[in-house]
């Protein structure tokens, strides 16, 4: 391995650091490495940069760490520890979710802690999520593992606290409920990632999330609170489509076979080894074609990545466009049913994507700054489409007046993604589309209490 022209000493990766070296020096190097990595990204960071930032010699860094990748592991640990401390996750107990009002307050509490973290450390969240996820498969598993643990901790918290308002009889409901609650950080997170630090915007964001969590988006018709009746079910359990990763037929139509094979080869390699470590020569070898052939069909490895992202994005748009427009409904009740139908279709689509959705949502955005910007702005545009729909529905008197629709649109999108969170995090997980869609719809339209009361028919 060569770093800045200097050949690194041949050491086994992951060898535990010598215990006689001062801990303070180690921490100093990790802190410096963190700053450099956040600033320049993994690829453009060299050991020399880190040594300079830590004000130690080049060789000193190597006494503590085997190589850049080894350092990255420690930086990851450091960043996660920092985040946990800033959010004070350790101080969180089941008493905090004891009653409904207290639970609602948590939105403000955690919201401002998150904003505070982003203010002191703008790059931290991006680093421990999408950037790490894009570096190699092991780190991707670390990110996914951390998110899973957070998600499960949420579920466990509500399980043990067992507050009266969140008593769910069906474990599938409580599971989905947990994911959906976690997803409410989404709009705030997007704000932070797009660099919107405005305090008024932040407060408006938290207010809208709280309003939705409190009683949902629906307006009251007259003086009565809207009653969410039972929603249509389709009894659809989407098992992970393992062949989706090799599904040649999912490539854009009208494409010649060889292009499809190269596309499929590239996709399986990205999945196995992570985007960075795959070369064009690997792709052509896997597809059993000569090297030059690749460039007859694609301009670069990056072009294939963009196509994969576009494939999922286009598929999503198609599903949404193909569904009946909820705003064309005759009354609020019909609007609710139609919206639920739409959410069900979208959730079904995402669940069927399997690992591809996970790749597009978690890994692709971390590949480089451009990919990141594309992903974030894509998500914002998606949110705005939903917001436009909500705006028209508000015009018909069905959506409450006192919420920011820009935020609400993103909240809807986050909710939908979160409903399938376990499938995104664990490729083998089957999604119960019905339950997920119901919890989502009830949450968005009626708030947390409504969502917790979802009682799907026993299948």
């Amino acid at each position: 391995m060569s770093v800045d022209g200097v050949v690194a000493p041949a050491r086994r990766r992951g060898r535990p650091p010598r215990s006689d070296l001062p801990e303070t020096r180690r921490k100093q190097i990790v802190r410096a490495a963190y700053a450099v990595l956040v600033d320049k990204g993994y690829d453009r960071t060299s050991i020399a940069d880190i040594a300079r930032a830590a004000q130690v010699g080049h060789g000193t860094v190597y006494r503590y760490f085997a190589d850049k990748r080894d350092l990255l592991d420690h930086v990851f640990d450091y960043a996660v520890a920092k985040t946990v401390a800033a959010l004070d996750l350790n101080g969180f107990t089941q008493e905090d979710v004891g009653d409904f009002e207290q639970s609602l307050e948590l939105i403000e509490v955690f919201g401002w802690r998150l904003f505070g973290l982003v203010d002191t450390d703008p790059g931290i969240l991006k680093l421990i999520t999408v950037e790490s996820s894009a570096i190699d498969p092991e780190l991707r598993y670390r990110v996914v593992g951390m998110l899973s643990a957070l998600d499960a901790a949420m579920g466990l918290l509500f399980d043990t606290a067992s507050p009266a308002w969140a008593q769910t009889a069906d474990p599938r409901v409580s599971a989905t409920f947990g994911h959906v609650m976690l997803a409410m950080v989404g709009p705030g997170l997007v704000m932070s990632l797009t660099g919107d630090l405005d305090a008024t915007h932040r407060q408006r964001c938290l207010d809208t999330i709280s309003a939705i969590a409190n009683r949902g988006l629906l307006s009251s018709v007259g003086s009565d609170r809207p009653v969410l009746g039972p929603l249509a079910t389709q009894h659809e359990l989407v098992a992970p489509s393992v062949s989706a990763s090799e599904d040649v037929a999912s490539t854009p139509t009208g494409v010649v076979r060889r292009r499809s094979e190269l596309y499929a080869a590239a996709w399986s390699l990205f999945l196995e080894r992570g985007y960075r470590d795959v070369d064009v020569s690997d792709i052509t070898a896997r597809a059993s074609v000569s090297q030059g052939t690749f460039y007859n069909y694609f301009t670069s490895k990056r072009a294939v990545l963009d196509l994969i992202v576009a494939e999922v994005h286009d598929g999503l748009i198609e599903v949404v466009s193909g569904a009946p427009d909820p705003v064309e409904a005759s009354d609020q009740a019909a609007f609710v049913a139609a919206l639920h139908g739409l959410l069900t279709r979208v959730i079904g689509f995402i669940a069927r994507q399997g690992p591809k959705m996970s790749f597009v949502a978690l890994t692709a955005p971390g590949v480089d700054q451009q990919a990141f910007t594309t992903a974030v702005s894509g998500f914002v545009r998606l949110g705005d489409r939903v917001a436009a729909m909500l705006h028209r529905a508000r015009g018909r008197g069905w959506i409450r007046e006192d919420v920011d629709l820009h935020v609400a649109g993103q909240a809807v999108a986050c909710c939908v993604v979160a409903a399938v969170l376990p499938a995104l995090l664990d490729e083998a997980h089957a999604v119960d589309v019905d339950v997920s869609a119901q919890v989502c719809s009830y949450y968005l339209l009626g708030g947390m209490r409504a969502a917790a009361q979802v009682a799907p028919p026993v299948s």
Partner: protein
Amino acid sequence: MPEPPQHSVTRGARMAGVVVKHASRDAVRRVREPFLSDERRAADRDAQVLRLADDLVTTLGTMKGAAMKLGQIISLLNLGLSTAATRDEFTRRLAPLFSQAPAVPDATMFAVIDAELGRNRRHIATIDPGPIAAASLGQVYRGTLTDGRVVAIKVQYPSARHAVRADLKNLALMTKLFERRYRHVDVGLSDVVAEVSDQIRIELDYRRELESHDHVWRAHLDHPVFAIPEPLAELCTDRVLVTEFVDGVALDHLGSAGQEERDRVGEAIYRFYCGTMYSTGAFCADPHPGNVKVLADGRVAFMDFGLYVRMTEAEVSVERGVLAAVMTDDAEEAYRLAKAAGFIVDTSAMSPETTMEYIRTVAGWYLTPGLTRITERLTHQCLSQAMLPGSDFGHAIFRQRMQPAHAFSRRTEMSVLGLLASLHAEGRWHDIAAEWILGRPASTDMGRRIADWQRRAGGSVSTT
């Protein structure tokens, strides 16, 4: 549909109730300290450990890679739970970790075989579709070589390596971040996690297993009782392990066999797993019913050497020394050795007499002369009597240090006890153990046949 989870305070109270019942039922009571405070302390600690189980399921449960392995090992560790009921509850709570991930499709696994074996792949004529067993971190297939031999092909999941390494790193980090919550549990969580992580990392590399397997195979060539399937080194890589297929009767199908047969198989199991513990110190630490089969010719076959432990000479000598002292009624010597080895740190809590009693209780089944039938009840009694809070050592043992190196040998013995219990095997375990610990001559027919073989094979089983 899983039953709805109960509030943790209710669970804790229920456990305390169980502890009280146990204490009043048990005959062995040497109450020196106030009855209630010991019990309450034990119940509190139990509740903490149970909470740890829940949290482990939370942190590990969604991590596919290492979850099951970690769960297996952790459930067997002696975390000092005070009653059998609590230990059962602990295991039960870890159950979600053991749920099998859906089988990875053959096509994916066969692709791993192709990639790993390269040119040597041509030696495999056929692979039967559908895995015959799940392995830790992989699946096992039955196949046939071009020369006609039937083989078992163990293949690692393609993502296992990355997923497991990632899981272990996350676990280490989370242990550090949240260790504060478990400070009262006092098991040195970081140490346990580190020890367990090392073992799992070793299991990731099938070449390590090949080494151990090969060593054990060579050491038992033409053995009259133990049959070890031959490993095929040329077809082994870090993610593929090919061994001779074993055609035999699984342990759980021996139910209809007569007592004599079950005793015979029990003796073979005891001799195989525990025999080398006190001599070479190298032993297979995963006695699992799935790893034992009885062949048509009566020999007992042992498989799976993924968890092969090698104790140092010093460690072996301590174990042998302590047990020899107990067998010869030398309390002072047993105590001296245990203390010197660092087992006993709080001497005010553990006296020589107490130490003796404790060891006799835990290992009574092979330290007490006579014909002993191993039953489930006996197994539970062994453990519960040893950890009873109302008794002397119940409280005292919590204060002593768990030695990671010895955790595996003690655990292996417990697992063997479990296997013997499933067979309701009866035997003179003390006399067999005395062969290894005191150097006494072979005490059974099987022992004599093995001793003959050892002489013919040129001395005892080779040291590592």
